[in-house]
C-alpha cells in the first residue's frame, strides 16, 4: 500500500515568490500578502428567513451579521457581506466550518463551503490605494470606504470580495481581497504589474490580518 499525503497547495504556490518585485526602494510602497489555510463558509438565507438567519447568527457569533456591504469582526471570525441576505464566515482552525455551523444555521440558511474556492490576498502600503485604483472601479477614499467597509465587486473583470480591515499600526490601510481560486494566479500577476512602479513586497502568511 502506498502512503498518500494530502498536502494542500495554494493556487499561488508557484506564482508567489517572496521578496521584492518591481522598483527597488528602501521600502516597497505596496505589500501583497497571501493568507493561507482559512475556513470560508457562505451562508445564504432561505426565502423569508433573513431575520431568522440574523438571529441565529447573533446567537452563534455574538454579533449581528452585516446586512449591508460591511464586515463584522468577532474574536475568532470575520463576517463579510457578500450579497443580499448572504454573508461569508471567514475563520481559522476549523471552528467555523460547514460541519460546525450547520446545526445552528442550516434551518434559516443554506451553507456552502468556499474555503478552497477563494484565495485571500491582503494589500497594504503607502501606495496600496493608488495601485488598487488600477484594478478597482470602487472609490477607496478613506471617507468612502472606511475601516469595515466591504464590496462584492470586480477587479480586472474578475469577481472579488473586497473589504477594508483594521489599519496597520503605522496608520496604513489594509485591503483584503477574496478572489476565485482559478483566477488567482492571473489576478496576482496583474497586481504585481500594477504595483511594480511602486515596489511590491511579497509574502505569505498563515494569519488572518
Amino acid at each position, binding site marked *: 500500500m502506498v502512503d498518500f499525503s494530502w498536502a494542500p497547495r495554494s493556487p499561488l504556490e508557484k506564482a508567489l515568490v517572496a521578496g521584492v518585485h518591481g522598483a527597488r526602494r528602501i521600502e516597497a510602497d505596496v505589500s501583497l500578502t497571501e493568507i493561507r489555510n482559512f475556513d470560508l463558509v457562505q451562508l445564504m438565507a432561505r426565502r423569508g428567513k433573513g431575520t431568522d438567519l440574523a438571529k441565529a447568527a447573533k446567537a452563534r457569533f455574538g454579533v449581528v451579521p452585516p446586512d449591508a456591504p460591511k464586515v463584522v469582526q468577532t474574536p475568532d471570525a470575520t463576517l463579510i457581506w457578500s450579497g*443580499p441576505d*448572504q454573508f461569508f464566515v471567514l475563520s481559522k482552525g476549523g471552528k467555523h466550518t460547514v460541519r460546525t455551523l450547520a446545526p445552528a444555521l442550516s434551518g434559516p440558511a443554506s451553507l456552502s463551503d468556499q474555503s478552497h474556492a477563494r484565495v485571500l490576498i491582503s494589500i497594504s502600503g503607502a501606495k496600496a490605494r493608488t495601485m488598487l485604483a488600477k484594478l478597482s472601479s470602487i472609490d477607496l477614499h478613506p471617507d468612502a470606504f472606511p475601516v469595515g467597509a466591504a464590496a462584492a465587486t*470586480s477587479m480586472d473583470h474578475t469577481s472579488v470580495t473586497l473589504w477594508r480591515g483594521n489599519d496597520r499600526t503605522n496608520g496604513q490601510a489594509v485591503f483584503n481581497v477574496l478572489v476565485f481560486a482559478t483566477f488567482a494566479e492571473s489576478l496576482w500577476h496583474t497586481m504585481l504589474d500594477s504595483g511594480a512602479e511602486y515596489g511590491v513586497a511579497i509574502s505569505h502568511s498563515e494569519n488572518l490580518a
Partner: protein
Amino acid sequence: MRIVCPFCGERELGEFTYLGDTKPVRPEAGASEDEVFDYVYLRDNVAGDTSEYWYHGGGCRAWLKVTRNTLTHEISSIEPAAGAGAAKVDA
C-alpha cells in the same frame, strides 16, 4: 454608465449585464404558443423611459429592474427583482 445597485451602491457599467425589457411576463404553464411567442419575441423597444432587467453579475449577483431612458441613458429608478436575496414572494 453607473448603476446604483440597491444592495451594493453605485457601480460601474462593466459589473452589470443587460437582459431586456421587464414588461413581457412569462406566461403561466398551459399558455398558448401565441402567448409564449409574444413573450419571447415581441418588444415595444421604446425610445424613452423603459424598465429593464440588469444582472449585477460582477457584484452581488442580484437581478435588478432598472428604469432607464433609452434616448439619454439616464436612470430614474432601480429596484431589486422580486426574488432577489431571500425576499419572500407568494406563489
